């Protein structure tokens, strides 16, 4: 049985990978995917705490379910925004979205 620490480290690593991708990639849709990776990292830590923590009222499992629903709402609106932007700007690259700078 793996320890709680190993699950937490995997979750931290997943969060860090998501943060790196969000900062480094240029594609708007991929940035949304990286946000999903970060949310999943947090979810994993919540479920691990729920499993290993003191006898609880399953708060960790509830929170991870709530986070999943919020993530679904977020990705829906985010993708709609991205598609609307791509329709007007003809590119998914976030570097090209510089109207406010000019």
């Amino acid at each position, binding site marked *: 049985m793996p320890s709680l620490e190993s699950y937490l480290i995997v979750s931290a690593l997943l969060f860090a990978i998501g943060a790196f991708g969000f900062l480094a990639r240029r594609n708007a849709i*991929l940035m949304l995917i990286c946000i999903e990776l970060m949310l999943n990292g947090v979810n994993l830590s919540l479920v691990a705490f729920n499993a290993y923590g003191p006898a609880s009222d399953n708060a960790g499992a509830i929170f991870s379910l709530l986070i999943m629903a919020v993530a679904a709402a977020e990705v829906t609106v985010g993708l709609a925004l991205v598609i609307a932007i791509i329709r007007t700007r003809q590119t998914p690259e976030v570097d090209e979205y510089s109207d406010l700078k000019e």
Partner: protein
Amino acid sequence: MLAIGVIGGGLAVVTLRNIIHSAVAMMVCFGSLAGMYALLGAPIIAAAQVLIYLGAISVLILFAIMLSQAGDANLPAPFHQQVPFAALAAIVLFGLVTWAIVQTNWGAAVEVAVVTVEALAAVLFTIYALPFEILSLLLLAAIIGAIYLARRPEEDERI
């Protein structure tokens, strides 16, 4: 084993050049996570993960990619020029969190308790009833917002 799937999938997501491949790697990552949830004694969370992430969100993202991709012929460079700073920030973040995890005393290991659906539902609809209702409102707002944003603007009201 599952951790390899999660981490490898995550790394593939951020490094692969073709965004479709990234989306498939994301599905691998989410599937491995579902297996981890099952190992952690939460089969209902694993089922929700498969339904919501593997089923709904992945398909949504794949559709969005297909709608937005003009052609795979000329793939642009995937990264900004700020990659070193992003990598540095991510590594520092991971290092700090790992340091905190290792430093903390988590107490004696206990047997993993299985989260039963009955117990989950009992608290979800009593203690957490208000967040549950707010969440349904949020989902409704998200549906309306997505329809409004993704709708093709009509002739006289260009946004």
